[in-house]
């Protein structure tokens, strides 16, 4: 078992894991980030398969443009919480409820 096969196996495993996480993560933002990572790994996988044209297109479109589009869409649908930031740092303690936002 040479190094390339170990690399390929790791690539397959991490792509499957990232695919699972990009679908079933609780937070939509995390889903998008995992999807972008999945796109980058897919680009590496295309490179491993010898399809460098597809790899370049996947890296530019799948990871770059699609990630930007998804983040822009997420920015539009998420509930904007305009909360005044406390200038005094000791009072600006975020409660556990505020940070648990699954959108």
């Amino acid at each position: 078992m040479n190094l390339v096969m170990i690399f390929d196996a790791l690539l397959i495993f991490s792509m499957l894991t990232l695919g699972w996480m990009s679908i079933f993560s609780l937070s939509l933002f995390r889903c998008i980030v995992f999807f972008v990572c999945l796109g980058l790994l897919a680009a590496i996988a295309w490179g491993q398969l010898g399809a460098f044209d597809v790899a370049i297109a996947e890296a530019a479109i799948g990871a770059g443009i699609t990630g930007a589009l998804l983040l822009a869409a997420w920015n539009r649908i998420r509930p904007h919480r305009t909360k005044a930031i406390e200038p005094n740092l000791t009072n600006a303690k975020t409660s556990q409820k505020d940070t648990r936002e699954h959108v």
Partner: protein
Amino acid sequence: MFNKLDIEYDGPAVDKSALSLIASVLVVGLLLAVTIKIVLSDKGHNTGLAPLITQNIELSGVTNPITAVLLNFRAYDTLLEIAVLLVVVLAILPTRDHHAPFFKRIEVSKQNLVLLALQRWITPAVVIFAGYLLWAGAHQPGGAFQAGALLAGASVLMFQSDTYQVNYTSFMARVLLVLSLVVFITIGTALIWFEGSLLTYPLAFSGLLILLIETCATVSITLALASLYSSFIASENISVTDHKHRTIK
């Protein structure tokens, strides 16, 4: 279990979750079995179209087999792809003033220094690299779509600071959006006159014609992908113009 049997049970006859589990296991098992079967039965005789392309690569005018297929042997496929991209852009085109200029620069008082430095350093490099990809598409991996996507990524970076605005409904933008399709169709139909059939390049000019089509395609693809991004972030600008349509609470 059986001594608790409920005679007058009127719930669902089958457990929904178990049913979906069985269905998914069956589908995954079938796919795995088919994949293993295909992998095991493939003895290398299934080489596809690769030998056919390597035989005829001299006729295409380029040396990269993928560009040869996309822009020469199956050029109408790429033509239709560009048309589909144009339809998508028409569907999501942000409605704005038709007479506003194509490109507008707005002075923003608060500049993000890190973003500004990133724009200044990365954008020219990306533009040069996109040009290289476009040029290199003739003999190595690269091409119009990759270059266009890179340029669109650069324009997404430029849109991050609200300094630059592109009006996609201005005359200039419309011309640039349809440029690739118009050039492609014009060359394709003109070749009927000269060569006798649609999109059959003459051997002497095929490399030049492919480069011309790819350059126009890069411009259109860049603008199309950038307009996709702008249609998401342009909501604030739109809401100013259709102020009168909004219902007042």
